[in-house]
């Protein structure tokens, strides 16, 4: 996995960096704890110089790194952001970096502080502590500089309801000296089908597309998208993703919040998982799904911290996912799994974790290989259980997310 923009980082940094409890006060020059400083390297690498970029380019690029032409300079930098509502801190020491030519996803449960953080970056809310820099500028003090360069898609759309879809887009375009051609953009996002429909009568997904078009019509350098594909049908979502990838290829920094794990997994170069107003994990999707064994603050107690595959070594953990009737007794499953056989049954505990993640959905996590699948299906056959599906693969981003943020409803 290529580490974009961070060529100087050692192997450790390719694993998840947990931003441990930080003590950040309102003052930028205030002392910070060692834990804070530890967290900095992954998220705070300076813009790489051309020589380093050339080295980095020599490393085989992952699909996510396809936009190698962009310079990956820091576009958004948030340090120790604090925002309180009525004395309650909804953002509490949040650090975040987004680079040019990269898609940065901010994941988190409802109420985690995602939208508030983004709104501080957009200049819509003033921080109670910490610093926010967009293109090196203060979003509020340098608003006049930033407004033409920053595109915004608000979570609630922010579209006036009484005007027609394309009329609105033309209006927003009129605010810029050299906007994208409205018709071409409308074509890209399929807006012509409802060009003359008032915003009030558009579906949720159609409104989202208009809002996205409004966010990018000014040819911004930085785009903030707050849940861009909420309420969209799969076709729309695909069109939106294509456009977002194209922006990345043009060197735009894209920051998006989302609840959709597949959106983050497919799109993002870098993911920040936010909970309780701070970043609790960050890294590329691969780093998060491969190298994570650390328990989140509310992590799944089933996942042990000292599992042998825990630190994401070469063999790496895999997950076998089985959908079958709920309520299977998993106690016997461990005994048939290959690793325990090869271990000679005794000494080292079998490195398997088997659990019923939700009723009827079982996960077997460990060094999954072909014999694992054979053993598990044989075990199912012995019990006369017909699985609806058996899939292999490393843990999904959703697994990681739930481990980090807990499974409780908020």
């Amino acid at each position: 996995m290529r580490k974009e923009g961070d060529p100087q980082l050692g192997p450790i940094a390719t694993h998840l960096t947990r931003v441990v409890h930080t003590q950040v006060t309102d003052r930028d020059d205030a002392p910070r704890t060692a834990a804070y400083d530890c967290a900095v390297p992954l998220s705070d690498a300076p813009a790489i110089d051309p020589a380093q970029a050339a080295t980095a380019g020599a490393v085989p690029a992952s699909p996510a790194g396809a936009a190698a032409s962009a310079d990956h300079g820091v576009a958004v930098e948030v340090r120790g952001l604090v925002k309180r509502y009525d004395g309650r801190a909804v953002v509490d020491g949040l650090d975040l970096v987004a680079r040019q030519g990269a898609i940065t996803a901010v994941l988190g449960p409802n109420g985690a502080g995602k939208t508030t953080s983004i709104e501080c970056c957009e200049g819509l809310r003033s921080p109670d502590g910490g610093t926010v820099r967009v293109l090196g500028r203060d979003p509020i003090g340098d608003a006049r500089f930033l407004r033409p360069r920053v595109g915004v898609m608000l979570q609630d759309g922010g579209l006036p309801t009484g005007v027609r879809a394309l009329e609105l887009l033309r209006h927003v375009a009129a605010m810029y000296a050299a906007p994208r051609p409205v018709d071409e953009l409308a074509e890209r996002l399929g807006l012509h089908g409802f060009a003359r429909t008032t915003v009030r009568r558009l579906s949720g997904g159609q409104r989202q597309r208009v809002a996205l078009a409004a966010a990018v019509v000014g040819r911004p350098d930085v785009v903030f998208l707050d849940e861009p594909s909420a309420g969209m049908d799969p076709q729309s979502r695909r069109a939106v993703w294509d456009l977002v990838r194209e922006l990345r290829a043009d060197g735009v920094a894209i920051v998006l919040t989302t609840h959709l794990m597949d959106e983050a997994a497919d799109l993002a170069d870098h993911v920040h998982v936010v909970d309780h107003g701070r970043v609790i994990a960050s890294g590329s999707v691969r780093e998060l799904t491969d190298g994570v064994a650390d328990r989140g603050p509310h992590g799944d107690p089933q996942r042990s911290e000292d599992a042998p595959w825990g630190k994401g070594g070469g063999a790496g953990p895999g997950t076998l996912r089985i959908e079958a009737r709920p309520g299977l007794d998993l106690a016997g499953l461990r005994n048939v799994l290959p690793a325990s056989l090869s271990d000679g049954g005794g000494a080292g505990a079998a490195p398997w974790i088997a659990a019923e993640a939700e009723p009827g959905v079982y996960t077997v996590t460990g060094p999954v290989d072909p014999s694992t699948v054979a053993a598990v299906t044989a075990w199912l056959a012995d019990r006369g259980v017909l699985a609806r599906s058996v899939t292999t693969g490393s843990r999904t981003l959703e697994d990681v997310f739930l481990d980090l943020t807990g499974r409780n409803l908020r």
Partner: protein
Amino acid sequence: MTVETPPAAAPAVRRIAAQASFETRAILRNGEQLLVTIVLPVLVLVGLVQTSFLELDTQGYSRIDFVTPGVLALAVMSTAFTSQAIATAFDRRNGVLRLMATTPLGRTGLLAGKVLGVLAVEVVQVAVIASVAVALGWRPDLGALPAVVGAGLLGTAAFTALALLLAGTLRAEGVLAVANLVLVLLTVGGGVLLPAEQLAGPLAHAAVLLPSGALGEAMRGALLHGAVPPFSVVVLLGWTAALGAGAARLFRWH
């Protein structure tokens, strides 16, 4: 990376003009807004002039000459206050204010666009009301035009400030109710249509101090006497300063 001109804003004049035109179209296209800003004043004009169910002391003027200035004042109130308060409140609730504030338009541009939009709608209102009034026999002295414009601007300033104060502090549904209720109350007892001294009891003294009474007096002064009474100017400026300061301090964008 394709080399393009760095992102830049359109010139401020163009941004504000675009916003003003956008706001104007939004109001003129909205059925309920048209009802309040155009239909209501015209109905009041026709009703007061053509029917006699309301006994009017026209102070020696013809009914049309006496009523039309008050109807123009009512028109200013309906647009600068009721219509603008409701539109802004719903824009605020729907996030429109925040979204437009992130574009090169910015907050001040948005405000400027709104004020110019109000003035543009008022031009339409005056054209419609004046046409109906002329059809009903109104023959105003065109020399009064500058005074009428002055009175209209002063009233617009005071009532737009009130609209923004309301829209920036209450829930949208609350603004909808309050803005309509206040318009009705000021129309009936606020010295807009009829001179304050013709109102019953203490209202006769109180109404001249209200922005509605002051605007009514200013319009009647301009059209009946050729000059705006200084007292009305002072009252309107006072309200503009107080309400504007309140709106600037209390307006919430979220």
